[in-house]
């Protein structure tokens, strides 16, 4: 396979710094780590350093500053950061979908249009989830405001969202899985829009992508390709043996945060996303437009908003063609 063409000069005594978020939606990365795919593909001489982030914007800052070489991130923060620093690329997809809109059981919300005058939580400003939410609200003609004439969007770390929902601080939340499922299981919330109805593309939008620093791609193209291979292999593994995957994901989570997770939750999370290496450029451009409209993208004119330079799918092509 592709891992055979290791270039000794490139992989000797190098530490590859891989970034990821502590979310179940990063399952392929977790599996690749747990099963040692990265190590296997990189070769013996490469060391792997894993850095876990709480949110995508920290991740994006880190990849832009060279703090990490490559990793897994959502498109929202990646777009924001790319438009500023333009020094990293999206090299592959990992999975799509994976987020749900839940509403508090006793908030009297039965449809998206009921969200007028309600408070909806998202993990971070500019995140992929916010973009979905804004699209969703736009479809129903609901404005984003800070008063009761529209819907109010606030940011909450997912862990805080659980508490906030319990305390009726928020009425709804568009969160990555398994947080939504967890709230449903707790009985505090119910699913309002399921993962495969979330825009854009009804759940078939990029949620987790692989990104790599320009410098890393230039100096270690082989390692970048090896990482893509690891990702592909992990995706296959999950598809082949989901039950085993749940356990592995839980183990990785325990390593990253000190606490594992119920396999049921992991199962529901994985059920709610679509594993794929493909990257939908149109969806990304649409997301960028939403971000722009929300005022998150500054110093760029709308007509110049072209994100094709952010995608560098040549490595992915090389890997898939080698198969």
């Amino acid at each position, binding site marked *: 396979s592709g891992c055979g063409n290791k270039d000794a000069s490139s992989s000797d005594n190098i530490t590859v710094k891989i970034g990821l978020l502590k979310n179940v939606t990063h399952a392929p990365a977790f599996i690749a780590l747990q099963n040692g795919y990265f190590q296997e593909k990189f070769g013996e001489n490469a060391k792997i350093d894993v850095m876990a982030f709480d*949110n995508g*914007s920290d991740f*994006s*800052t880190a990849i*832009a*500053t060279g703090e990490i070489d490559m990793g897994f991130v959502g498109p929202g*923060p990646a777009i*924001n*950061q790319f438009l*500023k*620093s333009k020094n990293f690329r999206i090299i592959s997809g990992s999975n799509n979908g994976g987020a749900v809109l839940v509403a508090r059981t006793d908030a009297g919300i039965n449809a998206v249009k009921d969200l007028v005058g309600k*408070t909806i939580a998202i993990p*971070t*400003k*500019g*995140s992929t989830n916010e973009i979905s939410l804004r699209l969703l609200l736009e479809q129903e003609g609901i404005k984003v405001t*800070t008063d009761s004439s529209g819907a109010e969007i*606030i*940011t*909450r*770390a997912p862990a*805080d969202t659980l*508490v*906030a929902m319990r*305390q009726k*601080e928020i009425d709804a939340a568009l969160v990555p899985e398994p947080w939504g499922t967890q709230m449903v299981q707790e009985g505090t919330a119910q699913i309002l829009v399921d993962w495969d109805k979330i825009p854009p593309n009804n759940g078939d939008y990029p949620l987790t992508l692989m990104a790599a620093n320009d410098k890393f791609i230039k100096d270690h193209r082989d390692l970048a390709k090896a990482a893509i291979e690891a990702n592909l292999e992990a995706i296959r593994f999950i598809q082949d043996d989901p039950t085993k995957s749940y356990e592995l994901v839980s183990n990785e989570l325990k390593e990253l945060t000190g606490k594992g997770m119920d396999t049921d939750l992991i199962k529901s999370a994985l059920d709610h996303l679509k594993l794929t290496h493909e990257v939908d450029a149109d969806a990304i451009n649409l997301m960028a437009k939403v*971000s722009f409209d929300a005022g*998150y993208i*500054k*110093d760029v004119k709308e007509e110049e908003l072209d994100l094709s330079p952010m995608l560098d799918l040549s490595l992915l092509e090389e890997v898939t063609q080698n198969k």
Partner: protein
Amino acid sequence: MGYRIFNWGWKFPSPQQTFQAFYDGFTEGPLWGAIVASLRRLLISFAISIALGTTLGFLFARYRFLDQTFGFLVVALQTVPSIAWLPFAIIWFGLNDTAVIFITTIGATWTMSMASRTGIMNISPIHLRAARMMGAGNGFRMFYQVMVPAAFPHLMTGIRVAWAFAWRALVAGELVARGVGLGQMLQDSRDIGDTATILCIVIVIAIIGTLSDHLCFKRLEDRIMLRFGNIK
């Protein structure tokens, strides 16, 4: 790592960007509202802290057994960054103003009570004796007629440090709390990597801090100190 600082680019906003952020913030953005909201929270917490802290300090200075039992606890609490209480505040009060005010109050009260304790313990015994001799008693009249003014220089120092602590706690608390505020703006700007707005908030905070220090505390202190004839 230091070299990075000089490799500006997107890492530091240009003056134009900062001006633009100021302009946007004040005209269409939430900057003005954020300032007002933050100041409101700050002032509420600050007032509570000062009143509570001064009273606590008085009790500690006055009742030896309190000082010996709970005194060390206050010292211990004083050393805990109020941000560490944040998780509890969120659980107890929710992600709302109450939590932020709680955090901010906790951040400023202990310092204030230590300052008040020191101030009252350091009152010249001659003043206390003179007051008692002239019939000021030992209770509340003594407290507000003699102890508070006599301890004023110390109290003032306490107030200034408490103010600084309160600011720190406020911003930290607002970073996670819901609503409008400078801390929330900071967090939002960070999320979308908007360094110009971040710088603009830092400048706003610095200006408010300097102004409040200069216009309120320093002036008050100077006036009081003038009265006291610069005794230290």
